[in-house]
């Protein structure tokens, strides 16, 4: 990932559900090496906005563009350059953590897998089935799965959910380190995670 620069840009993003306008005309851009925080009350559209940015959902109006700045090229299909996780991204309960990791890893090397497991304190638990994981361990695995293939854009929906204080500390230190070389977009209501972001918007 080193040396590669990406840019994600939202133009005029609007989302409606029926007649209900969730958010309207959002414009922002973000490059690798910076972080962006989306806050707002429950139901304000944070998760929807993240899904739109990750290309999982289409907006009612507006567009999201991705560009490889180092090559000066727009990217039409950016699924491999985005790592996304959220409360609805569930690993397979009947597989072990390592099996889920190998399932999700298109190109991750063993050393990267080991370092992520170590960083999130899951070393020694990688051969346990996910159904035996606590909700906090599952959340840490979700973050590992999102960043496994070392994507330049990392989109995390409520990454601190279910984490205890030590888990949150690990997460904050991890986010602090990856935001140096990636574009990190967070949806959170945690003040400490919010402080890690250079910029942000509040929905609702």
């Amino acid at each position: 990932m080193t040396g590669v620069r990406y840019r994600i840009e939202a133009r005029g993003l609007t989302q409606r559900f029926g007649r209900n306008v969730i958010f309207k005309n959002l414009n922002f851009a973000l490059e690798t090496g910076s972080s962006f925080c989306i806050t707002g009350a429950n139901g304000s559209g944070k998760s929807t906005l993240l899904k739109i940015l990750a290309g999982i959902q289409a907006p009612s109006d507006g567009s999201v563009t991705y560009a490889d700045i180092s090559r000066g090229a727009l990217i039409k299909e950016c699924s491999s350059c985005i790592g996304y996780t959220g409360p609805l991204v569930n690993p397979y309960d009947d597989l072990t953590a390592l099996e889920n990791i190998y399932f999700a890893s298109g190109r991750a090397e063993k050393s990267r897998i080991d370092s992520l497991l170590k960083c999130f304190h899951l070393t020694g638990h990688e051969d346990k089935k996910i159904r035996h994981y606590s909700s906090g361990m599952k959340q840490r695995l979700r973050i590992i799965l999102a960043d496994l293939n070392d994507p330049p854009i990392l989109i995390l929906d409520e990454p601190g959910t279910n984490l205890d204080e030590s888990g949150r500390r690990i997460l904050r230190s991890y986010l602090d380190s990856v935001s140096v070389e990636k574009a990190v977009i967070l949806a959170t209501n945690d003040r400490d995670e919010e402080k890690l972001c250079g910029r942000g918007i509040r929905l609702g």
Partner: protein
Amino acid sequence: MVREILRNLSKDFSVEFRTRFALNVSIAFAVTATVSVSLTAGGVPFPSLVQSILLWMIIFFSAMNGLSHIFVREEDQATALFLRITMSADSIFISKFIYNQSFMMIVLAVVTPLFLFFLQVKVILISYFVLTILSGGLSIAAGATILAAMVAKAGGKGSLFSILSFPLLLPVLWVSIFATKNSLDGARPADYNSLVFLLAFSGFISAISFLLFRFVWIED
């Protein structure tokens, strides 16, 4: 893409062989239905047409119990989003299609010998019989894969899947039943039209399903 297909296939087989949910349900249905029919008949042989109809009904409903599971499980266990962000819709369809074909072959391998044994069915044209069973099974699994995805996205369960599948797969069952009857009677067909129809149906439905799958799978 090949790597994605292999990864998804390996994951699906691992999950299925650990839980064996679909396989157990299908095999249990097949054994129960075959033994029940055999006991009801009381050793009296059925006419070849009735034998063919019974064989295909047992194959159809045994398979229906398991074929939908491949997509319904992803929705039930809320893993569909993880799968979706992990690989392309094309890879997902192809791997699920191959999985369903493999599952169908297992069902056929269990149901057919069981049925032949318990109902004391005598097959005269063995190679024609085997080809009919294989191509009929191939067509059912081909049609069932896209329907399973639609039923899963609609939040439906097994019963909806069987109801939707029946009209789509009726031509397959119809042709398979008569081709099986001919193989039991020893009436060698002149042009193998039944087999050509079954293979053409599989090819057509597979191609259409592949093209339409992304619209079923990716909801905007």
